[in-house]
């Protein structure tokens, strides 16, 4: 029997501290794979420790995993993780898994697989987090690393049922907004690393934040938004059909009960034994309720796309005014 996770234990982490080494490793891994294809599903394991006094999760190390779409790929990954765990102990690196990291392409990471992975890690350790790294945004000049985990209500619900119904959602007051919880991320370095950073001051840096808002980025975001809206539309149609089916069935049940009553009345008149009133629920099975999980996830995706576009537009308008002042 699943023991109930107390709210205080589950939400005990209020902040995630990452060292710059981990971020550099994640960056390197993602961009190594990005050279080959536009949307590589890059993921890896985070290692670290929990600081219970300060309610902080410290991430101190990470290692990449292979792309495992096949079963044998997953088997190799499992062996690899065990091997790494044993080896890291020998060099004094924290070997406790505290979550996983994943790269995203324009915020499309939020799907069923992601939910499953987050759930798996949370089951093992209540404080596990999922770190989402956005390589495109970082390339444009803004380091984008965010930490997510399932909210307590979503976690408990997902433990019992793999697909949610509307009734369950209402009970737990779960909307697309509180499906995932974001935890603030802080980058903290040790003193020696700070010395290294001062040494690297002389490294030439050519990044610029001044790229004008290109239409291709907007187009792609809009396409994704439209895709998300299409999915929501399909969900709506499914719900509509379900409602119609329920209505039809209720009509049928009503008609059946009426017929039975009339027949019985007729038989009584003729002096025959009345037919038994059968249990209607056994005859007419109610149509299964529509799963709401997918619609929640797609609503989440749409919301994040909107956020992205809004950010882009705000900075874009600023840059356009700048360009105007230069050219006039």
């Amino acid at each position, binding site marked *: 029997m699943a023991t109930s996770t107390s709210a205080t234990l589950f939400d005990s982490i209020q902040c995630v501290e990452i060292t*710059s080494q981990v971020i550099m490793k994640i960056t*390197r891994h993602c961009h190594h794979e990005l050279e080959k294809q536009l949307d590589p599903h890059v993921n890896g394991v985070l290692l670290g420790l929990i600081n219970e006094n300060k309610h902080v999760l410290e991430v101190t190390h990470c290692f990449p995993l292979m792309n495992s779409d096949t079963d044998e790929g997953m088997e190799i990954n499992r062996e690899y993780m065990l091997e790494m765990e044993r080896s890291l102990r020998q060099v004094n690196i924290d070997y406790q898994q505290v979550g996983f990291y994943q790269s995203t392409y324009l915020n499309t990471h939020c799907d069923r697989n992601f939910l499953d992975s987050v759930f798996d890690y949370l089951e093992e350790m209540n404080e596990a987090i999922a770190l989402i790294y956005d390589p495109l945004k970082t390339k444009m000049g803004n*380091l984008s690393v965010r930490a997510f985990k399932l909210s307590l209500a979503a976690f408990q619900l997902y433990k019992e049922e793999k697909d949610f119904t509307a009734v369950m959602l209402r009970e737990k007051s779960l909307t697309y907004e509180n499906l995932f919880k974001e935890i603030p991320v802080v980058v903290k370095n040790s003193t020696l690393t700070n010395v290294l950073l001062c040494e690297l001051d002389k490294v030439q840096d050519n*990044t*610029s934040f001044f790229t004008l808002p290109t239409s291709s980025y907007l187009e792609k975001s809009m396409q994704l938004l439209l895709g998300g809206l299409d999915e929501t539309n399909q969900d709506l149609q499914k719900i509509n059909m379900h409602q119609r089916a329920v209505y039809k069935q209720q009509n049928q049940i009503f008609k059946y009960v009426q017929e039975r009553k009339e027949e019985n009345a007729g038989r009584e008149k003729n002096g025959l034994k009345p037919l038994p009133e059968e249990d209607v629920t056994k005859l007419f099975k109610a149509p299964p309720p529509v799963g709401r999980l997918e619609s929640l996830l797609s609503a989440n995706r749409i919301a994040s796309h909107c956020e992205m576009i809004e950010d882009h537009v705000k900075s874009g308008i600023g840059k356009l005014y700048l360009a105007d002042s230069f050219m006039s």
Partner: protein
Amino acid sequence: SSGINAEWPLRPGRMAVETRSVALPVRKVVIHPVVLFNIVDNYERRHDNNKRVIGTLLGRYDKGVVIVTESFAVPHQETEEEVSMDMEYAMRIGELQKKVNTNMYTVGWYSSGIVINEYSSLIHAFYKCQCPTPVHLTIDTVMKEQKMKINTHITLPIGVKNGTEGCIFTPVQYSIHGAEAEQVSLKFFQQLRGTKKTPNFNDQENIITSCDEMISQINVVMGHVKKVLSGEVPADKELGRQIMEVVQAVPNLDSDTITNMLNSHMQDLLAVEYLTYLTRQQLAVSARLNQIL
């Protein structure tokens, strides 16, 4: 764990281990910043009785340039009399890393501290089996000279043939350079300056800081130009040409076209913003409805 012992027969003038293939020429080493962070972290986590740490460098070789992109630590012990390292660990983890990271091979090894002694040449001999020209990277985490000096070396054979032969560690030019995104992260870390900070994905602050930087740079250039005009500083042709290039980089279009372009672009952005706002309102309404119905 297997190790190399200093008493191993290493007659002066003969490498006890066969090199794998003909040594490839190495002119330059490009180090990605990740590697340096890894080494510093490794040094911080060392066992108390180790004064220095070693590990393997991974990367690739490209026409005379060795590009070092990753690294991992190798357990090793060093005392006055002997040195030992876990060779089996190095080879095992090397294989694992090669499986996970495509296009990455062993290209050398690193050690903390600037001392290069006979133990270094022993360890270097081991790495010569792994790759033709291993690069040896040292980083002075102890900071003997108040700086964290980084050095890269390769070994070249010296001596007289059929006489006393040996190897000498010669320095090689290096540069620290990462991919675009790595540079961005590095810039962010340098802004930390010993405090902790949340990575902000809000473009506007970054634009403001970049604007300030640009204004100060323009002021410097203007100051120089004024000095040249007033005769204080002799004019430099190269500098003048470069300044001309910068000024001419702004496209020279007539003001009508510019206003039209900017306006249409602005309208696109505003339209998109309105649509997203609308979408978000719809989502919020649907979420509330779900709660009620």
